[in-house]
């Protein structure tokens, strides 16, 4: 390097310091936790869509088989699989058995993690933490939910009197729909604002579908489907999401009747809340040094995640606490983030969070969210990572935050960097 070049790079170093949170985040270190494969199944409507007859174990086997084959990872190297799931009974059996049935060897362990709607992201964090701690070298995080076959009955009826009478814990007897109305009522989110937010989700999802952007996220899977009329069971390949209603506008959504007339302000409808959906998403994680050793293609990096608690009766606004918390931990500014994938449990919380955090709406759920695509509870956290990485790749951007509200009053947020 000539003297002039040396002096120039010295001055440049002073100006674009490697000390801002963003430049730190974008640096590559051998100890980074990287994602070498990320994909999801199509998301289809519960009880009606292509996955309606696919039980959770079958869904897991289909996706894990695809992950094993497409990632080209030696299955003997995968030491643990963490399943994020909320509703399935016998989760522990389902997880380990499905891993083995999907062609992983006897040495591949499995576990289940459940923090409601954040379970998929929690699974990513659990696997990453195990790798950081040196417990394992390679692991798979998977989020999956079959809402068709596993009913969501809400809070149990048998909770202790100490809980019911507790001023905070007792709020958990409220249904999720009621918490959406609480958010709308407490923070002045109107039906119009919610319908506008929901319409944008539909329109973006429609565009992403038409332009073929989502094809990058989805692995078509082969499942058995029973024809509801004839009862004939057929093997079908499910290729795409079916929740997106083309041509949806705020106007058309405004005609839908309130879903919860019993709770004021009754602004939530079937059109501006997330759909009941089946689906699964998976990520293959390891250290960067291991990925380079194995020749695995590095898709992105997991930079960290955090969780917060808040009043259960307004659980929807969890992201408005979780996002600033993770930004603070990583020294990031809100404008450093290119894509926000915030789970649209309800439009009320979506409107509130975007407004409260002062987010640029163009950066929030650019391919639509759970209102258009559906919200398979345990899957969503992992699904959002797949979507965010794909969108960053398409737009040649770097940093994404995924966040979601969590039933019983929590919020979670995680930061990912695309390395396309």
């Amino acid at each position: 390097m000539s003297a002039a070049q040396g002096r120039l790079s010295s001055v440049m170093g002073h100006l674009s310091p490697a000390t801002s949170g963003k430049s730190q985040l974008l640096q590559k270190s051998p100890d980074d936790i990287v994602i070498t494969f990320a994909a999801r199944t199509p998301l289809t409507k519960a009880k009606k869509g292509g996955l309606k007859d696919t039980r959770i174990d079958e869904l897991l086997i289909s996706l894990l088989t695809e992950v094993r084959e497409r990632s080209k990872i030696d299955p003997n190297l995968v030491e643990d699989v963490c399943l994020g799931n909320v509703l399935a009974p016998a989760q522990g059996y389902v997880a380990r058995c499905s891993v083995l049935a999907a062609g992983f060897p006897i040495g591949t362990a499995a576990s289940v993690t459940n923090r409601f709607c954040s379970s998929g992201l929690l699974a990513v964090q659990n696997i990453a933490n195990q790798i950081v701690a040196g417990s394992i070298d390679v692991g798979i995080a998977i989020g999956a939910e079959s809402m068709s076959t596993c009913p969501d009955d809400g809070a149990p009826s048998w909770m202790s009197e100490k809980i019911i009478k507790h001023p905070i814990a007792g709020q958990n007897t409220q249904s999720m729909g009621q918490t959406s109305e609480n958010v709308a009522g407490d923070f002045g989110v109107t039906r119009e604002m919610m319908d506008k937010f929901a319409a944008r989700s539909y329109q973006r999802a429609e565009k992403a579908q038409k332009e073929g952007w989502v094809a990058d996220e989805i692995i078509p899977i082969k499942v058995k489907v029973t024809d509801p009329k004839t009862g004939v069971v057929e093997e079908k390949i499910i290729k795409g999401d079916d929740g997106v209603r083309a041509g949806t506008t705020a106007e058309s959504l405004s005609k839908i009747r309130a879903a919860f007339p019993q709770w004021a302000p009754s602004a939530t409808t079937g059109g501006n809340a997330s759909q009941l959906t089946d689906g699964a998403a998976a990520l293959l994680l390891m250290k960067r040094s291991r990925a380079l050793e194995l020749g695995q293609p590095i898709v992105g990096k997991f930079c960290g995640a955090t969780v917060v608690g808040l009043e259960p009766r307004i659980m929807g606004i969890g992201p408005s606490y979780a996002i600033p918390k993770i930004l603070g931990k990583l020294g990031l500014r809100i404008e450093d983030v290119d894509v926000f994938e915030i789970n649209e449990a309800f439009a009320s919380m979506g409107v509130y969070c975007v407004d409260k955090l002062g987010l640029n709406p163009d950066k929030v759920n650019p391919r639509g969210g759970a209102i258009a695509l559906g919200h398979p509870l345990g899957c969503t956290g992992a699904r959002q990572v797949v979507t965010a990485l794909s969108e960053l790749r398409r737009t040649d951007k770097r940093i994404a935050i995924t966040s979601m509200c969590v039933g019983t009053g929590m919020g979670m947020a995680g930061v990912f960097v695309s390395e396309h």
Partner: protein
Amino acid sequence: MLQFQTTGFNGYAVKYSPYIDSRIAVGAAQNFGLVGNGRVYVLELTSQGILCPKFYDTQDAVYDIAWSEANENQLLAACGDGTVKLFDVNVAHQPIAQWSEHSREVYSVFWNQVTKDNFVTSSWDGTLKLYNPERAQSLLTLPTHSCTYSTEFSPHSPSIISAVTSDSHIRIFDIRIPASAANHLVHLIPIHGPAPTLANINTRANPLGPRPPPSECLTHDWNKYRGTILATAGVDQIIRTFDLRAPRAGAVTLMSGHRYAVRRISWSPHNSDLLLSGSYDMSVKLWSDGNAMSDASMVTPNLGRELGEMGAHTEFVTGVDWCLFGSQGWVASTAWDQRLLVWDARTIIT
């Protein structure tokens, strides 16, 4: 506000003469100090404005200057080619002495203000060198193992030398102690974050915030009144003060407000709490650290107060200095905008 154009040369340093109240020197370089010649201007403040009776051209950029404390007519230039040159105002064109010992850019030079018989330089070659102007070779080389942007003598001791480096540490050398494996090094103080101490280990001070990462330190200065306090600043845009009585306790005061790296800081010769800073954000700011000293009960650093900002420069500000004489508050600043500005810091206090 008075100004002088250093046409064709981008400013790098400015220093008031410690002897003559109307004399200022500016060190400057062509092409922003990347390639080309350097120049030392010796300027006179007159009733007709700022005049330039003398200037000296050098082969390579001039990055820093220091007036002799022993001879009112002599001053030093730290040059990009590794040389240090001593000029005498009564001798035209050529330096009266030159030392060519550093292998890379010399980035700072400082004259001992106590004994007045030696001076120290720092360089990107990872060393400090101590010289006596009467001798042809340096007296001592102190390794820092890291690109060293700034070095000074303590204004209170003839034997204590400080340096700040790109590795984000303050080094304090005491040349009275015997040279040992530590090469006179008595303190190695991390700038970017406190070492754990009893005072801060079990507190909830900053429980969530990330520990600030290391960043290049570009400038530092000793407080003229409080002998154990020195201030540092650099690429992370934060000015910090440290108390050498508690070198492991971390920063005493944080002053944050610059939007790019801080290139030069200077404590007031008149007020023990006032500090001037020049930054790549093109501003010069005046701060008060509230005279904060280290205190065992302190769990979080004090926050200094920004008193005002001077925004007349249109490029990176590289040099600031206080006038020792006259009504207290006159300062000079130089920048890559090829201007020396002389102004009263009291006018920017808001």
